[in-house]
C-alpha cells in the first residue's frame, strides 16, 4: 500500500516534468465525458455520467412532505451519495464514510447555494405541504474525479426531472379534503410537468502533485495528489462554490489559475450538458 503510490508518484511526476500525463491528456483537459439521460425509468429524472472509466448514476425522486418551520413556503432538497463496494475494491459497505459525506455535501451545496432549484415554486399548501426532492448518487465505477461526475449526473437528472403529478394525484386528492387550495394547484398542474430550474453552475476539479496541477484527475493522479480544488462556475463565469480538499496547500496564484481553467472547462461541459438535456 505504501510502495505502489511511491512508484506511481515517481512515474507520474517524471511524465509531468515533461508536460505529459499517463493517458496522454494535457494538464487542463478532461477525459471523454458521456451523459445519458432517462437511465432509470422509476426515477422522476435520472442520468448516467461517465468521465473516462468513472461511472456514476444519479436519480431524482419526489414526494410530498412537510416544510421546515423556518421556510414554510419552500420545497426541500436532500442529496445522498453511496460509495458502494461495487465501485472500487477499497469501498466498504456500511454507513457512509467521511469521503462519501464530503462528496454528497459538496454536490448538495453546489445545487443548494446556487439556487438551481426554485424551491419557492415547490410549495403546494403554504406552511403545510411541499415537494421534497431526493437526489441519490450511486457510484458504480470509480476511476477518479467523483466530484465532477457526481455533480454532473445530479444536474442532468434534475434538468430532465418531471414533477410526478400523476403518481401523487390520489394522495393529493385525499389531502384536498383538508386543504382545499390543492384544487387550485391541481388545476394549474393537471399533469406531470418539468421541474422548474435556474441555470446551473458546473463543477470542475483539479489536483496538485509536486508542482503540477491537472484537471479531472484520474484515479492514479488522485492517489498521489496532495491537494484538490473543486470550483463551480456559472454561465457568466462567476464563482458559485469552491471546496479545497486533501492535506496539501495551494498558493494564491495557483488558486487563481485553477479558477480560470475551471471557467474554461465549465463552459465546454455546460455546452455538452445542454445539448444532451435539450436546452
Amino acid at each position: 500500500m505504501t510502495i505502489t503510490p511511491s512508484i506511481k508518484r515517481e512515474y507520474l511526476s517524471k511524465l509531468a516534468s515533461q508536460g505529459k500525463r499517463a493517458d496522454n491528456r494535457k494538464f487542463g483537459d478532461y477525459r471523454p465525458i458521456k451523459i445519458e439521460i432517462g437511465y432509470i425509468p422509476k426515477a422522476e429524472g435520472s442520468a448516467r455520467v461517465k468521465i473516462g472509466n468513472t461511472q456514476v448514476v444519479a436519480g431524482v425522486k419526489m414526494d410530498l412532505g412537510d416544510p421546515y418551520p423556518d421556510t414554510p413556503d419552500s420545497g426541500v432538497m436532500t442529496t445522498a451519495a453511496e460509495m458502494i463496494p461495487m465501485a472500487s475494491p477499497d469501498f466498504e459497505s456500511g454507513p457512509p464514510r467521511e469521503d462519501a459525506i464530503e462528496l454528497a455535501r459538496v454536490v448538495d451545496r453546489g445545487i443548494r447555494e446556487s439556487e438551481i432549484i426554485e424551491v419557492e415554486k415547490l410549495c403546494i399548501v403554504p406552511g403545510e405541504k411541499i415537494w421534497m426532492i431526493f437526489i441519490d448518487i450511486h457510484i458504480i465505477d470509480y476511476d477518479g474525479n467523483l466530484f465532477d461526475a457526481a455533480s454532473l449526473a445530479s444536474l442532468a437528472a434534475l434538468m430532465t426531472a418531471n414533477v410526478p403529478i400523476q403518481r401523487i394525484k390520489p394522495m393529493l386528492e385525499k389531502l384536498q379534503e383538508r386543504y382545499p387550495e390543492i384544487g387550485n394547484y391541481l388545476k394549474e398542474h393537471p399533469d406531470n410537468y418539468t421541474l422548474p430550474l435556474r441555470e446551473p453552475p458546473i463543477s470542475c476539479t483539479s489536483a496538485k502533485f509536486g508542482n503540477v496541477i491537472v484537471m479531472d484527475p484520474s484515479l492514479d493522479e488522485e492517489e498521489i495528489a496532495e491537494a484538490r480544488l473543486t470550483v463551480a462556475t456559472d454561465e457568466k463565469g462567476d464563482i458559485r462554490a469552491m471546496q479545497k480538499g486533501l492535506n496539501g496547500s495551494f498558493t494564491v496564484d495557483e488558486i487563481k489559475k485553477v479558477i480560470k481553467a475551471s471557467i474554461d472547462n465549465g463552459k465546454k461541459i455546460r455546452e455538452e450538458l445542454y445539448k444532451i438535456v435539450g436546452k
Partner: protein
Amino acid sequence: MKNDNIKLFRDGKRVDGRATDDLRPIKIEAGVLHRADGSCYLEWGGNKIMVAVYGPREAIPRHTQNHLRAIVNARYNMAAFSVEDRKRPGPDRRSREISKVISEALEKILLLEKFPRASIDVNIEVLNAEAGTRCAGLTAAGVALADAGIPMKDIPVACAAGKIEGQLVLDLGKEEDNYGDADLPVAISPRTGEILLLQMDGHLTFDEFEKALDMAIKGCNKVSELQKAAIIQKYKVELEVE
C-alpha cells in the same frame, strides 16, 4: 392492495402481451465495469441490474476467515431511486434476507476450497426494479462470477414461475406480482438440475406446485443460454481487441 377489478389476462394474453410460458425480454452484457474483477449488466423486463465481483481476496475482518474455504458475500442492494416510492438507502430486512439466500445459492456452485481464508464479494445493485429482482440479480451474479474467472462447477441461473387468476405462468411481471396468487422463485445449476434456491409465497396445490416448478426450471434453462451467449460475446470482443 389486492384489487378484483384488475384483469391480468386479456384475450388469453397477459397484460404485457406474453403467453403463459414466455419470459420478459432479457439483455445480458458481461464485463461492463473497469474496476471490478468481473461484472455484468442485465436488463430483464423493466429490471436494470449491475453486478460487480471482487475476489478471491483476503477476507476482512480477519475473524470472518474460514481456513478451509473461501466465504461468499453476496450483497443485494436496491438503489434509492429504483422503486416507485423512494427507498431509504442502506440494507433493510428484505435485502439482508435476499443477500443471505443468494450467498447460500452461490456457495454450492463455487469451488471455495481452492481459496482458504479468502472472500468472494458479489455486489448486486438493483438500479431499476420491476418484479423478480432476486432471480435477475442471481442470474447476473452468475455471469459476473464467470467474467471474473472464478472457478465454478456451473453457472447458476434463476427464474420464477407463479399463478395469476388461477393460471400458472412463467416470470411474473410487476402487476402480476402485485395482484397474483403465488410466486415461486427458483435457482438451479443447469447442468445437474439441482435446486439452489427455492421460495414460495401464495397458494398452490401440490399439482400446481409440480407444474410451476417444472415451468420455472424450463425458464432457468432458457435464461442459461442467454448467460452463456453473453459470456461468449465478451470473450469474442476480447479476442478481437487482441
